[in-house]
């Protein structure tokens, strides 16, 4: 079964066995917070690979794992939790069509929420022992849910890059969407921030994903994620990620 939306083709191996799944979305971005968090969620839930996303717009790479070639854009599922992840940073030309395709797909599958997970760059990360996680929601109901989950609502600021487009597209398509932003290093892999993000996902979706192994392997993750982080840095430069440390314009 293939859902074609302009430049991206989403293919599921079967049908999603959930009437209204929560779709967790992560692409390489600030501190690789979403990528590390999603990887932990997939691993701890033992989520199964249920689909893939293809596009002529993404760099021509396949990821080979245990001898098996995989597309860098994957869909995993465990019960009513679905994850959409990318193993490569998205080139700027792909962000809009990718976001449109994912939001439309989430709507077709009656997703109860599209939950983006990423980092919020802060310049004093060295001083911050445990990252605070903020949430941006497209609906009042989701904002209420954030409060119930003890997640601070992100009130003022700028979000740049792929997650900004996911939020805009979800709002336009009337898909309930939330993006969680954990305070993080902008340019270094940040497993500590990812652990804080996973805990926030737990509270928001009522899950119980352990972060113990993530914290134990934090230093190892930082070494192994260097290549992806550096490729992501290049894309973030183009996406004006540094703007996230600015205040929005205030005119009155």
């Amino acid at each position, binding site marked *: 079964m293939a859902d074609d939306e302009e430049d991206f083709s989403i293919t599921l191996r079967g049908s999603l066995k959930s009437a209204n799944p929560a779709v967790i979305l992560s692409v390489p971005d600030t501190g690789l917070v979403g990528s590390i968090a999603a990887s932990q969620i997939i691993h701890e839930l033992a989520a199964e690979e249920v689909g893939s996303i293809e596009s002529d*717009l993404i760099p021509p790479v396949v990821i*080979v794992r245990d001898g098996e070639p995989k597309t860098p854009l994957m869909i995993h599922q465990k019960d009513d939790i679905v994850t959409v992840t990318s193993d490569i940073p998205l080139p700027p030309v792909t962000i809009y069509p990718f976001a449109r395709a994912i939001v439309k797909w989430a709507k077709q599958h009656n997703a109860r929420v599209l939950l983006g997970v990423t980092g919020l760059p802060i310049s004093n990360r060295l001083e911050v022992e445990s990252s605070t996680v903020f949430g941006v929601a497209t609906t009042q109901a989701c904002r209420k849910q954030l409060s119930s989950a003890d997640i601070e609502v992100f009130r003022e600021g700028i979000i740049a890059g792929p997650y900004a487009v996911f939020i805009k597209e979800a709002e336009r398509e009337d898909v309930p969407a939330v993006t969680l932003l954990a305070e993080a290093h902008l340019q270094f892999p940040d497993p500590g921030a990812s652990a804080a993000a996973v805990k926030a996902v737990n509270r928001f979706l009522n899950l119980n994903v352990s972060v113990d192994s993530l914290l134990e392997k934090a*230093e190892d993750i930082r070494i192994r994620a260097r290549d992806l982080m550096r490729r992501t840095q290049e894309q973030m430069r183009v996406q004006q990620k540094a703007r996230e440390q600015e205040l929005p314009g205030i005119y009155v």
Partner: protein
Amino acid sequence: MAERRRRTIFDLMEGLRREMDRFFEGWSDEMSAPPLYDLERRALSPLSQITETDDEVIVTVDLPCVEKEDIKINATEDRVHIEARMRECVKLPLFRGREGDTEFQTFRRSLPLTVLVDPNEARARFRGGILEIRFPKRAKGSEVRIEQSG
């Protein structure tokens, strides 16, 4: 007056070519970046970031698996060299497709600084596996007075 021309397949192809050029431009930076692995020395090049304030150049380096005592910093007025031994060997499956891992035991990086600094007045701290070095800028400049008008 020039006649307005309909877009032909060749115009579309030209547009596509320009789009592809833009697409690949984004890749060239990545490809020209220095390698993250020095196989000869069995050293990893750490991720780093250089920022500037009015008075300082701040170099931040990601050094996981490293203790403070094992970091050596050597700085001149326009360059800083960092070398750090890791707590234990890190094995990475670098030569994908083949069996076996490559072992690394140190981080090593030499970074050019954006402006001249005073290396003798530099301050460094190491927290959570991240090294931060703050160099005061060398050129302090002189005060410029604004003339009285009228």
